[in-house]
């Protein structure tokens, strides 16, 4: 038993909620449009295929974690790649997590600015979000787990509100099937996989999770399925609502389709959903900020924890402010993220998975005992 194992524990259900909350971030609002631009009306098929692939990644991650009991992402990388290479990869992840956090924060700011609070200085929006996230992760793993679990109810609330999108839906818009080319499908699958890519973060949480390997696998695959079906549901509602030409003009179809939905209690459901969604944005943001904090802690030596959090927060805030200035800057961030995402969410996990067969520690221990 390593030290960290005894220190903090998260239950299986908490693990599932952490996974769900870190998966559903900003992408949910514009995923239908992005998929439609790439694959056309077949977007939902490539979403399904991408979802199945992401399940394999989750299985791989759980396997890696099993091979190195009690070790987090950065320790595992040191064990596999050796000390120097492991540290370099660790720093790479630090950058990656920061970039994702910056992307999440900037998109959040932009959305709220466009939809809800056009007059409020964007820096204030960033600051509010940062305060929430920093406060959440300052409490440590157990607090993160509890907060994420607490907010999970919003997923169900939002799912119900999305039903309003079916009011004007026409399912003929889902047809014809099979018009996209093979390369379009690949592109769609890539987009899907990136939007489900927070399985990388699992390596940070898995060492502290309770339950056997089998139970963990089952929980995480289940959680991933929930997210995939939620995405599928969202994509189908938006496709059926907007039709094949209008959806390309609408950048946040999910909010847009709720603009006319009138209910007795809430007049503007889109605004209400947007407010609920900020919670998703916050939890995903907090998860990546936590990842960055963990990574930073491991680079040279262990330091005071809050110092790491503040450094990460300040870097994120500064870069987000720069990228929020105009669309060109934001594109730079997105392009950079696109470039590195492939390495950190696809290549490195696969490499770790393959090498974990050679360097696994669990079998060795058993042999010693």
């Amino acid at each position, binding site marked *: 038993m390593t030290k960290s194992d005894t220190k903090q524990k998260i239950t299986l259900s908490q693990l599932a909620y952490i996974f769900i909350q870190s998966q559903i971030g900003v992408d949910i609002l514009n995923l239908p449009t992005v998929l439609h631009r790439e694959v056309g009306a077949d977007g939902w098929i490539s979403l399904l295929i991408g979802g199945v692939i992401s399940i394999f990644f989750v299985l791989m991650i759980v396997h890696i974690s099993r091979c190195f009991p009690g070790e987090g992402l950065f320790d595992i990388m040191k064990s596999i790649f050796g000390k120097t290479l492991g540290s370099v990869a660790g720093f790479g992840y630090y950058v990656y997590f920061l970039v994702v956090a910056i992307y999440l924060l900037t998109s959040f700011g932009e959305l709220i600015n466009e939809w809800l609070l056009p007059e409020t200085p964007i820096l204030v929006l960033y600051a509010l979000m940062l305060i929430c996230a920093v406060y959440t992760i300052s409490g440590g793993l157990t607090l993160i787990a509890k907060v994420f679990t607490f907010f999970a109810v919003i997923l169900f609330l939002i799912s119900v509100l999305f039903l309003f999108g079916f009011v004007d839906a026409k399912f003929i*818009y889902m047809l014809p099937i099979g018009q996209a080319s093979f390369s379009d499908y690949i592109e769609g699958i890539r987009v899907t996989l990136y939007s489900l890519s927070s399985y990388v973060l699992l390596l940070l949480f898995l060492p502290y999770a309770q339950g056997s390997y089998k139970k963990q696998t089952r929980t995480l695959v289940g959680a991933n399925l929930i997210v995939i079906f939620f995405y599928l549901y969202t994509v189908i509602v938006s496709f059926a609502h907007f039709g094949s030409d209008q959806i390309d003009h609408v950048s946040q179809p999910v909010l847009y389709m709720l*603009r*006319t939905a009138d209910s007795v209690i809430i007049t503007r459901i889109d605004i209400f959903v947007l407010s609920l969604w900020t919670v998703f944005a916050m939890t995903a943001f907090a998860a990546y900020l936590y990842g960055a904090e963990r990574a930073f802690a491991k680079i040279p030596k262990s330091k005071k924890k809050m110092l790491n959090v503040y450094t990460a927060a300040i870097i994120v805030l500064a870069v987000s402010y720069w990228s929020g200035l105009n669309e060109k800057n934001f594109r730079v961030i997105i392009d950079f993220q696109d470039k590195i995402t492939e390495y950190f969410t696809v290549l490195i996990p696969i490499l770790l998975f393959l090498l974990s067969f050679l360097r696994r520690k669990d079998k060795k221990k058993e042999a010693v005992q």
Partner: protein
Amino acid sequence: MKKLIIILISCILLLSGCWDTREFKEVKLGITAAYDMTEDGVYKNTILIPNVQNSAQGPGKESTQFLTATGNTPSEARTNIDRRLSSTYSPAQLDVLLFGSNLAKQDIYPYVDAYYRDPRMHLDVVPAVVKGSAEQALKVVPKSELRPSEYIEGILDSEVDTTNSFESSLQAIGSELYEEGEDFALPLLQVGDGGKTVSYDGLALFHKSSYTGKDIAFEHTTLFLLMKKQKGKVARITAKIFDGKNPEPVNYTTINIEDFSSKIKSRPDKQNKVRTDIKLDLTVMIQEYPQDHLSLNELPKVKKKLEQALTDQANETISTIQEANSDVFGIGRSIYGHYPSYWKKLDWEKDFKEIEIVPHINVNIRSRGIFR
């Protein structure tokens, strides 16, 4: 204690203000707007702003204010309206948007773009076309109405209940506006009685985003909407089932549609490129049969005559639609959905006029009232 003070001070700093307050007293909300194109091609915007005066007893009396301004874009016209108001004009709560037929015939999209683009705008606006000048229709304020500002909205709403019009909104026509192989129709209004009333006049057929100038006549709207699978609270159709009997009303009957089902199926066809079958089953109650003596033996004959009359009505509507080149049934989209490779061979712009649309109407008379 120190901590508490810090928290309190930061609360005062953080929670005391808001950048995005928009107070109700500072804006004037337009309820109905009319967009017109003058003869010189200048865009003209007229709005109706209701002002409710407080009164000691009962509901406040409402006075209406009309403002007209011209401009190159709707936003510019709005700014020009704003110059004459003590507070800011906001179209965020607009209920009805009227297009003059001159403007609608050109292209409505440029004028509604702002509604789609600005998240503050309410997309629930009901668009409608006015034959002639929309401004004139807007300015009709019947004295008998308690709330003159809701006059036109009321007309449109009540026609939805009687299945003469359907619940349209800018959002609802949004997908049809963009989609190829699918068009839409909007309610059509006309100023009548020498400018004293506004009447509902049928449905204006659109192709892409412009008004074709052709309409579905008021008498045919109910059947048309039933074929489109839309029914309000009640649906009544009057049909001519006999010829040459005296007096004239005897030739007619009015039916009340209690239940209906409609299926539209399109498939490629060698002769006419596309063949569409509209299968409409109606369960009806005879509401008015001026001829009297509606015995049980008579019913099969009445049913036949009724089916014939309704099919004639439907055919008339269909030929209007094809003449207007307005694919309101979304036949093109359905062909594209089910036969994508065949769709590529079609030139829908031209082919729609030539396709074959066949209505199959089946009437089931469930009741003939309590008077035999």
